[in-house]
């Protein structure tokens, strides 16, 4: 993995400030850059006060669902006599998303600090960082950071001399997409097959080892430190559009775009300017056709929708999609949408845990039909069947993997029906790279 690009002038680098700065990976370097001051401050505060600051800041979950973080932390009732747990979801398995990878590669201590702050706020003594198995480099740096932090007494029996015990364990996953789903992650962490659990009970009631658990994304936890240092108002002010979405957000940009990479912009930034200015626009001679803005499981946007979008939780919804994890996949006019969607469907069929009927059978069935259409063997009835299977796969299963498979297919057929029909009717669309499936 190489070095990140030099930040664009319109980026607001709060979390990504030290990307590429190798010294920031070490404890000494991190401290030199103001690291662990927030934790020191947090350990001097009452847990409820920390939760209130986070609540006031308007920080919302960066993993995809956008649930208010302060409220999530406040579900953990102190003094219930049970051990509390913090889970950090570093599985980052959503296709097109690689922001947490960069965060952990360059600023591992920021995550250790974020975990420790959150653990203190929710009354947990143990934090688990569940890292995706393929992330060998982030895993190495996280291991180093945890070791250093233990050795320096920052975490452990007596975290920073506060008398509080905070343990951080780094757990390596085995590479299943579904283990990024919070309850499947807990099953996997406990040593079982990573199958999502039925909710309720929610993790705040019964999570890891049946105990109250809070689970947060890497980016969410890392954001806690600057909020504590600079105050809720500072964070709240980083907002260009809807006041319900505050702060900065990291986007992983990939696909047919001139400057792919990880970018950090303020909530409410114009998606048009983001794509054309910050990320450099389409490659020479090409035009954008579609954008998947939040990882493979969110609805596909047409380029018109994307250009009208303001980049925050509400803005993406208003333009027919979702912010999701911030994994922006850009598709230009040289691609076949059918090929792209068939490949996405194949991914979900491969990653379905197979518990629920609709998901187990539906993802595989969808893939088979999509690939048949891609290969020019489809019929017009197939499109209705796909839409109907999509309907059956939506909102009926334990977790949302099934919905995630249906979403790109249904939105793709609705927004790019012409391409499907052209393939079906033999007016075959010849994409430049269609053979790469």
């Amino acid at each position: 993995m190489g070095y990140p690009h030099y930040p664009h002038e319109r980026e607001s680098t709060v979390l990504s400030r030290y990307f590429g700065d190798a010294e920031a990976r070490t404890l000494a370097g991190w401290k030199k850059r103001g690291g662990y001051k927030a934790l020191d401050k947090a350990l001097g505060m009452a847990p409820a006060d920390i939760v209130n600051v986070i609540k006031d800041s308007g920080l919302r979950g960066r993993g995809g669902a956008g649930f208010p973080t302060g409220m999530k932390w406040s579900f953990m009732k102190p003094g219930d006599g049970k051990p509390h747990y913090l889970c950090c979801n570093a599985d980052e398995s959503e296709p097109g998303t690689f922001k947490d990878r960069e965060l952990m590669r360059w600023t591992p201590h920021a995550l250790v600090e974020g975990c420790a702050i959150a653990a203190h706020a929710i009354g947990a003594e143990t934090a688990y960082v569940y890292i995706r198995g393929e992330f060998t480099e982030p895993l190495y740096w996280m291991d180093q950071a945890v070791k250093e932090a233990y050795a320096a007494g920052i975490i452990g029996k007596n975290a920073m001399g506060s008398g509080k015990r905070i343990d951080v364990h780094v757990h390596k996953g085995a590479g299943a997409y579904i283990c990024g789903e919070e309850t499947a992650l807990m099953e996997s962490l406990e040593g079982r097959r990573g199958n999502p659990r039925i909710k309720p009970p929610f993790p705040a009631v019964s999570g890891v080892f049946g105990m109250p658990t809070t689970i947060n994304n890497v980016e969410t936890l890392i954001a806690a430190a600057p909020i504590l240092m600079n105050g809720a108002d500072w964070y709240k002010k980083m907002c260009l559009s809807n006041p319900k979405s505050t702060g900065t957000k990291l986007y992983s940009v990939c696909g047919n775009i001139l400057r792919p990479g990880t970018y950090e912009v303020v909530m409410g930034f114009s998606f048009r300017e983001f794509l054309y200015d910050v990320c450099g626009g389409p490659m020479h001679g090409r035009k954008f056709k579609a954008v998947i803005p939040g990882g493979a499981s969110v609805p596909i946007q047409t380029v018109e929708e994307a250009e009208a979008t303001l980049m925050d939780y509400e803005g993406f919804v208003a333009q027919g999609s979702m912010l999701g994890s911030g994994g922006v996949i850009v598709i230009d006019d040289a691609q076949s949408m059918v090929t792209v969607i068939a490949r996405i469907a194949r991914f979900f069929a491969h990653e379905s845990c197979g518990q629920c009927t609709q998901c187990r059978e539906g993802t595989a069935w969808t893939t088979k039909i999509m690939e048949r259409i891609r290969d020019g063997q489809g019929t017009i009835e197939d499109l209705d069947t796909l839409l109907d299977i999509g309907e059956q796969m939506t909102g009926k299963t334990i977790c949302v993997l099934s919905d995630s498979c249906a979403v790109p297919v249904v939105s793709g057929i609705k927004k790019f029906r012409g391409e499907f029909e052209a393939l079906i009717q033999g007016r075959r669309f010849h994409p430049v790279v269609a053979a790469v499936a």
Partner: protein
Amino acid sequence: MAEQKMVSLTIEGRSVSVPEGTTLLEAAKTVGILIPHYCYHPGLPVAGVCRMCLVEVEKAPKLAPSCATTVAEGQVVHVHSEKSLDARKGVLEMLLINHPLDCPICDQSGECELQDYTFQEGREDSRYREPKRFNPAEDFGGDVIYVPNRCILCTRCVRFMDDVAHDPALNVSERGDRALIGKFEGKDLTHPWAANVVDLCPVGALLSKDFLNKARAWELDRTASICPNCTQGCNVIMETRENQVVRMRPRPNENVNAFFMCDWGRLNYRWMNEKNRAERPMVRRNNALAVASWEAAISAAARALSGKSVFVAASPMLSNESLYLLTQLMQSGYGAFRVTEGEEAPLPGVKDLALRRERAANVYGAETLGFKKTKDLLADLRQGDVLVIAGENLAGIDASALTRASEVIVISSVLPEAASNASVVLPIANFSEEEGTVTNLRGRVQRFTQARQAPGDTRPSWLVLGDLLGAMGKQASFFLPSEVFARLASSTKAFEGLSYDSLGFKGLPLATARDTGRKTPIAMGAA
């Protein structure tokens, strides 16, 4: 028991009031509504994976899995609304896309929940045009064969082995549409209760080797009975085809066996179909046994017994009714029985359920009625006694041991070789051919009924013994086993207050039976 809070709700327009914490699916059952389901089973932890039991709950954003949703005050639930029917139709279509549709050669056909619900609510056609998934059948060991192509991955079998048998032998291997039930390496379904997975399987994916290709479900006659193979007294359904017992399956009884029965009991039914039977009454004439009429044989036996000292060697397989009548026959004599023994094999997930060491149905009943349990059956036989052999096969006993008896009367289904010098032989029905009650090791009296017809001139044991007592001038003959039981209940303290009506088909404990303290035996391994 603590006061239970009741919750009232409406299911399909019917008012329901159930204890707090009940699931919608169980609540619906109480008003006679069966919500279609596959993965849910009352004896297993909830999985919530088949998504078949989805119902519409008013004001809820999504359809609710009724097996995993607990009741809430004032809920309005629609089981057959368009939305829920549509969802279930979708599930059925998905379950069938990779199903081989080989009902004509599938053992489960006729008792298959996939057939039933598809017929009830499914589509009449499929829109699936792609090749179907194929996996070869696999021998799971024990009595079980797995046919993965028919499997709907409800995971009932996996949960049974994990949470009830506490012998995790099965798992879900692979994922997505490649998923199938697998065995852990080095494991087989050799647990003594493993064959229950065949009953639990709602489709034809797990099959019994013993029953394989033996009968179609609709050819079977089903009879409520009790497993006679040990003292646990598991409630069973005895299934017969053309008058042959071909299968035994558990019948739910929360006080005895929950939903299960052991493999040994289940597969030990062939003796009921035995061909080597005593079929005609016989009386000894000119030093040889000769076929006689029932009247002649009964009066010959009555003559032999009247005024004599009697020793009864009884079988603990006999019903309470017959054993009671035998005690009347003994007068001042003795009665003894012996029991075959084997290894005890508990089912850990259900309290007080095991394949018991003593392998006979009515050991406790025989003891209650005054028969002596012994290893040496004929030890108490005195010189000159009339020996009555009732149901005993005298296996391992030499004919010379019987010479102490002045006369031998055999009242059995099979004429034991050692008793070939008997003076009278009265052929009786075996366990599967008559009606009666047996008492299990916890003192629970349970009814069993006639599953097959007895061969030849054979008569039920209670009828023969009643007639014999009548011929001896003891008491009037009986016309029904319930009459014998009524006499037993009125004359024996332990059976006081019991009748066939009050027993029903779930049984009741003897007045003297100790309370086992078992209220809810439902197997719940996971909390």
